[in-house]
């Protein structure tokens, strides 16, 4: 009897799936594949709204345009007589993905639930959310003129009542965006399809997929191989390689995110504006921009970028590196070089620890560059690379000396809430440490009360001047959002506020 030898049988069995596997690689070509580093941790918009918003699954009441101006989202109008009482008018004819209409009651319930969780909305001190005939009314404990900007933050996305269980936990994502979730595989993948009953313009591309690929090598290779149509957040070295890859279009847009040095203003080496000025003068921003970020325009001399004109001092000239001037400033504060070249005052050496984290891969590299640059001034800096949460934690327990971080001032289109958080009366976890300014608090309070644009412009300029002179936080370089897109795609653009990937505006070319 002839029996097939077991090995060759096994080989034949294996051939079948191999052949099958080789075929359908091109089957999903009409699906828009998006790759970015951020994982989807949960169904709750407070945690994962960033991705739900960018993939255009969930929407907020208020939206923003490229200049940061607020534009209607699910609410068409918002008014306040006194910045304490707010009336929002809802858009008519909006449906949730389960087919139910969006009503003032469902919006109020969704907002109430957001208020129970930590997030930006807590800043506004909202006392009451009441549904009305056409919209919702909000009553605040104090005036807060930046409330509409907070209502554009992803954590305030509106979900349908059926999205929650009895405990208020999100069990399904039922929102209002142009795309609805078809499958969600936490933490990596989100598949969605066009929502036919969308209130706005129907998207041209019918299906999309989001894939979280935290490793930058993986993302670059996916862009290079054509597996993904849109690949976000590319590292500078890969970007140079992708430029030479045919079939890809590269996009870059400055975003209001700044790499900055957070300083403990009670440390003896950092406790006067002159000392902090010396550090700022010791930093070679252009060197870091060219050598690490590979961009000549990345040096940041102010915390807020020129695109946030209200908060940017356009007439202030950038200050180039000047070691002589820096040494003079240090000497005027009593810090002089010791026998080992390290500055000392009354026998104490100027030694500092610089804490940073690796979630943003360029930060540790910039930190070591700063270490070398400040060494030239005679400062002995140790770099400590840890988890991002060590920065707020060591801010709270007072052990932090210096921290290098990337701060997004465009989290909401108006930077005021972020700045109030960072430079509040007791400092801020991601901002000033042991530094506060009553004058700045007064400006902030006035800004929360005034809705007049001219008055707000003047106040914001005053605040920016104060921060630039006192330097509780020193800007280093600014970020660029980067995207590699398949050249088959048309209508690709970047949102400078990173709120949306704008998939609904894209279409397949020929």
């Amino acid at each position: 009897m002839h029996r097939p030898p077991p090995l060759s049988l096994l080989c034949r069995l294996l051939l079948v799936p191999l052949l099958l596997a080789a075929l359908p690689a091109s089957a999903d070509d009409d699906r828009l594949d998006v790759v970015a580093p951020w994982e989807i941790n949960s169904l709750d918009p407070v945690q994962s709204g960033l991705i739900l918003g960018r993939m255009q699954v969930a929407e907020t009441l208020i939206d923003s345009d490229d200049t940061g101006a607020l534009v209607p989202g699910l609410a068409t109008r918002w008014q306040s007589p006194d910045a304490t009482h707010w009336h929002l008018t809802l858009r008519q004819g909006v449906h949730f993905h389960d087919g139910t209409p969006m009503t003032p009651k469902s919006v109020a319930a969704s907002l109430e639930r957001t208020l129970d969780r930590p997030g930006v909305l807590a800043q506004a001190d909202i006392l009451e959310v009441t549904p009305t005939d056409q919209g919702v009314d909000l009553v605040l404990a104090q005036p807060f003129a930046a409330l509409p900007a907070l209502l554009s933050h992803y954590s305030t996305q509106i979900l349908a009542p059926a999205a929650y269980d009895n405990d208020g936990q999100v069990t399904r994502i039922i929102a209002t965006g142009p795309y609805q979730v078809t499958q969600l595989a936490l933490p990596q993948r989100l598949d969605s399809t066009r929502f036919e009953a969308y209130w706005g313009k129907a998207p041209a591309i019918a299906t999309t997929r989001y894939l979280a690929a935290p490793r930058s090598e993986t993302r670059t290779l996916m862009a290079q191989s054509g597996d993904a149509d849109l690949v976000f957040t590319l590292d500078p070295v890969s970007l140079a390689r992708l430029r030479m890859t045919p079939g890809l279009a590269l996009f870059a847009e400055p975003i209001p995110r700044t790499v900055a040095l957070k300083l403990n203003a009670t440390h003896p080496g950092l406790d006067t504006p002159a000392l902090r000025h010396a550090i700022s003068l010791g930093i070679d921003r252009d060197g870091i921009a060219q050598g690490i970020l590979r961009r000549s325009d990345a040096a940041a001399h102010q915390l807020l970028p020129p695109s946030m004109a209200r908060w940017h001092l356009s007439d202030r000239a950038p200050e180039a590196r000047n070691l002589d001037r820096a040494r003079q400033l240090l000497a005027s504060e009593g810090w002089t070089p010791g026998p080992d070249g390290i500055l000392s005052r009354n026998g104490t050496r100027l030694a500092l620890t610089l804490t940073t984290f690796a979630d943003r891969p360029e930060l540790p590299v910039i930190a070591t560059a700063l270490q070398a640059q400040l060494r030239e001034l005679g400062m002995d800096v140790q770099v400590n690379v840890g988890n991002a949460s060590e920065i707020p934690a060591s801010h709270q327990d007072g052990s932090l000396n210096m921290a290098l971080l990337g701060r997004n001032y465009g989290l909401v289109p108006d930077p005021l809430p972020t700045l109030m958080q960072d430079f509040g009366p007791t400092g801020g976890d991601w901002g000033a440490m042991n530094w506060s300014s009553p004058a700045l608090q007064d400006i902030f309070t006035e800004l929360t009360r005034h809705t007049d644009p001219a008055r707000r412009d003047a106040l914001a300029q005053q605040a920016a001047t104060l921060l630039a002179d006192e330097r509780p936080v020193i800007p280093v370089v600014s970020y660029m959002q980067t995207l590699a897109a398949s050249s088959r795609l048309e209508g690709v653009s970047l949102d400078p506020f990173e709120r949306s990937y704008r998939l609904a505006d894209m279409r397949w070319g020929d």
Partner: protein
Amino acid sequence: MPPLAMSLLQRVCQAGLVAWVVGTLTFVLTRTLPGDMAYRIAAGRYGHEQVTAAAAEAVRAELALEGSAVQAYLQWFGDLARGDLGRSLVSGQPVAGELQHLLGHSAQLAGVAIVMALLIGVPFGLASGLSRHRLLDRLGLALAVAMRSLPPFVIGLGLIMLFSITLGWLPAAGSGHLTHLWLPAMALALGLAAVSSRVTHHAMARVAASPFYAFARQKGLSARQALYRHGLRNVSVPVVAYLGVQLIYLMEGVVVIESLFAWPGIGHALVHAVVARDVPMIQGTALVLGLGFVLLNALVDLACRGLDPLRQTS
């Protein structure tokens, strides 16, 4: 008690011991790691930029992190005894449900990797073991050393470069389609195959040099018949037994490879859970990996017992 039942009972006891050791170790280790747990969990939940003292304090209060460690430890074992692995501190979802989804992906990856490793390593080892050419042996050894000494991460990158970018045959990373499985599985399989091919080579060379193999050829069996009837089964015992040893390599590899290929498996989840101090998730994943190790070793034992008639009689 028959030896088979005895051996299984031993494995069951081992599984219980593994559960206790893994549960205790992960608990002690996560509690003694530097850094504030509440801040870490808040970072895992809200993204690092949203971590403020207020968010961390909210997490601390919600999860009662200040409570007694001993109580939390006993609670976990109590829940485990009832089959409840708790809820993830980051996503809020039941750990058991998440593990089920993740384990499926990892098992698929590991299973395909083992099959591929056997299909690559065994034929190569057999050929070089049977061949009298020293060159083939040397070549096999050189290849095996190279593959085993390269970290899976580097092999993975090389495979993506070749199969996705240069040839354009397979997707570089992702999941959801059968084609996504080949490259990560291959990246794991090459390292495994390196060892399997050497074990097979030595076993085959030993069998080929034995008197019973020479007798099989002398009584008139062809080379092929002799191999199938008298060679393979003899060779298979050390190869399968050695697979058990290689499981460690496989599990290490899974953690790295899943991250590189954005594969939603248990190794990748473990790394993230450690970073985010998601204690129930760390305990759950470590427990599943530990028990998986015991189970696979038991299966290797059974397979060896089935393959080796000497063990059945003894």
